């Protein structure tokens, strides 16, 4: 705990971005292995876009340049198809970076995850776009990163578990195979979008409610069916849950304050 404390202490969002980038390396490797040069092209274009915005805002605000967009580009690459037109990528990723994060002051000051915003904007404005669902290999590659983020306190077990419990309940998962399918489809979105610490609820019960809300919304957005939610439904669920996170925290804190007041009479 103390070792880790010195790792994060006073580093701002740098420590978060470094650890998340490390967690993203294995799934990114799998994605590149599958997609080949086309995916590599998407990754390079996405990195260029986010780094240009990071640099532009650092220069305009007279701050040190910090490549916080690395994780945004990596998560974006994991979801979008390799044949996405370049100008689509530039527009949605720019909007995601700027209105999802940079105008609020950068990573850690915003209340949404820029990757979620970019993906949601892509889905809303590009009707032909279908996000690619994670393959079993990609889902498996998320595990070491999830373990790292869990150990360093950047992934809340409360959110992840309550999301999965709600999913299991609403989908009526009973067999081992369907559970594996659920874990595979929700892997990347759960670890890197829904559980993103900067855009999730921060109170203990708030985290439980946040995960449950994301699970319920994913089910609704997927059409209230029996099948596991697609990548699009998960992205919208993550976005809506993030938007609701401050309200959830407010409700939890009001309840706590009410209970405290009642205790003191």
């Amino acid at each position, binding site marked *: *705990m103390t070792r880790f404390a010195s790792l994060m202490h006073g580093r701002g969002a740098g420590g*978060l971005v470094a650890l998340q980038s490390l967690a993203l390396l294995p799934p990114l490797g799998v994605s590149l292995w599958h997609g080949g040069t086309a995916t590599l092209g998407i990754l390079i274009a996405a990195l260029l876009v986010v780094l240009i915005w990071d640099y532009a805002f650092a220069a305009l605000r007279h701050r040190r340049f910090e490549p916080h967009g690395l994780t945004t580009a990596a998560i974006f690459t994991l979801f979008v198809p390799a044949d996405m037109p370049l100008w689509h990528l530039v527009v949605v990723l720019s909007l995601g970076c700027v209105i999802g994060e940079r105008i609020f002051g950068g990573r850690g000051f915003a209340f949404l995850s820029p990757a979620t915003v970019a993906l949601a904007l892509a889905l809303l404005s590009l009707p032909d776009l279908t996000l690619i669902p994670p393959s079993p290999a990609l889902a498996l590659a998320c595990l070491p990163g999830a373990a790292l983020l869990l150990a360093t306190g950047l992934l809340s077990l409360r959110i992840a578990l309550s999301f999965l419990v709600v999913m299991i309940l609403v989908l009526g998962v009973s067999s081992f195979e369907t559970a594996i399918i659920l874990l595979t489809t929700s892997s990347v979105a759960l670890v890197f979008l829904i559980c993103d610490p900067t855009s999730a609820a921060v109170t203990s019960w708030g985290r439980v409610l946040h995960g449950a809300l994301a699970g319920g919304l994913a089910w609704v957005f997927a059409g209230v069916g029996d099948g596991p939610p697609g990548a699009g439904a998960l992205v919208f669920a993550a976005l809506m849950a993030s938007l609701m996170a401050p309200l959830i925290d407010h409700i939890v804190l009001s309840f706590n*304050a009410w209970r405290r007041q009642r205790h003191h009479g």
Partner: protein
Amino acid sequence: MMSDPLLPSPVPVALLGRDYPGLRPRAVVAEGEVVAPGQVLFHDVKRPEIEFVSPIRGRVASIGFGPRRTLSAIVIEPAEGGPASPANMLPEGGDLRTYLLSRGLWPAFVTRPYGGPPDPEARPDAIIVSAVPARGSALDPQAILSDRQSDFADGMNALTELTEGPVHLCLAAQSTIPIPANPRIKAHRKRFARDWHRPGGQVARLHPVGPLGQVWTIGYQDVVAIGSIRRTGIYDPIRTISLHPEGRARAQIMQAPLGADLRTLFAADGALSPELEPRSGPHGHSHPAAYMGRHHLDAALAAVSAPRRPTGPQPLIPLTGLDRALPAHVQAVPLMRALSIGDLEACARLGCLDLLEEDVVPLTALCASGTNYERCLRDVLDQLQKDAA
């Protein structure tokens, strides 16, 4: 001349302003004067009934002031001579409160909210005695109390005279410390409460402080000192403490006076080196210090820590570990946000009145923003206290 209580090897001591926030001392001794253990050194300007006494026989080496004539530190170096130690007993039917105030045992209490010694005429809703070893501490309260059981029982019974409310005795789950037979003394054991080993967690669980409430906390060795002064009339400044030099598996348990010079203690142990600095306080809640804190029983020798100074404003990253650092009912991230912007109303609503600086030390260590939450909490508590008055 009364003989001094049996002292371990002589060691310089200090009374530190850090332990008494906002205290402005009026010294009754001068620099260079030789004082006896238990002799009054100074009292509080605002509350002159509260007397502070010397833990050892020695020469007053320096009286240091901080901002606005608050106490910085009074250092006493061991020396021979000086007057006899005061040894007046509490007269039959005398007022215990006045006795403790005049004999220097009042500062053993810490009030919540706001910290520091309680007001001389205050009556707390409850007194909480902590006999739970700090996490990672080598001290075993049961062993320490085993040969001082009657003093401990006397001290516990004395505490019931200071409050109309209960006196809570917090024990480790497996503890078999005998509990004095007094209906007002309530013993508590908690096995699975992760915040049970800290006064902050004990207050939060047994008697959370409202805006109008007041709870005092005191350590088990201070309760023994109260029992002992009632029996003998002699002030007992000796505490059993544990020293944890970095990289050594075994802690050293020794007897030392209150406020002992940590470098001298560690040097005697042969553990001192230039890369290491002494820290006072329980593991995870300690701070670099030259002298042992008034309410501390643990000290460590750890690598020198230089705080990282971030450039420009840095965000707060809501790590899950932040919640584990605080008493269970306090939500860390909202409190940290409220503290860092000095939002008094929100801080009070989030339970900051239950907390003192030492409780939020881990937040400073864990937070990516580099904010000093101890200082923020002290400012907020001072302001809330001023508003409440």
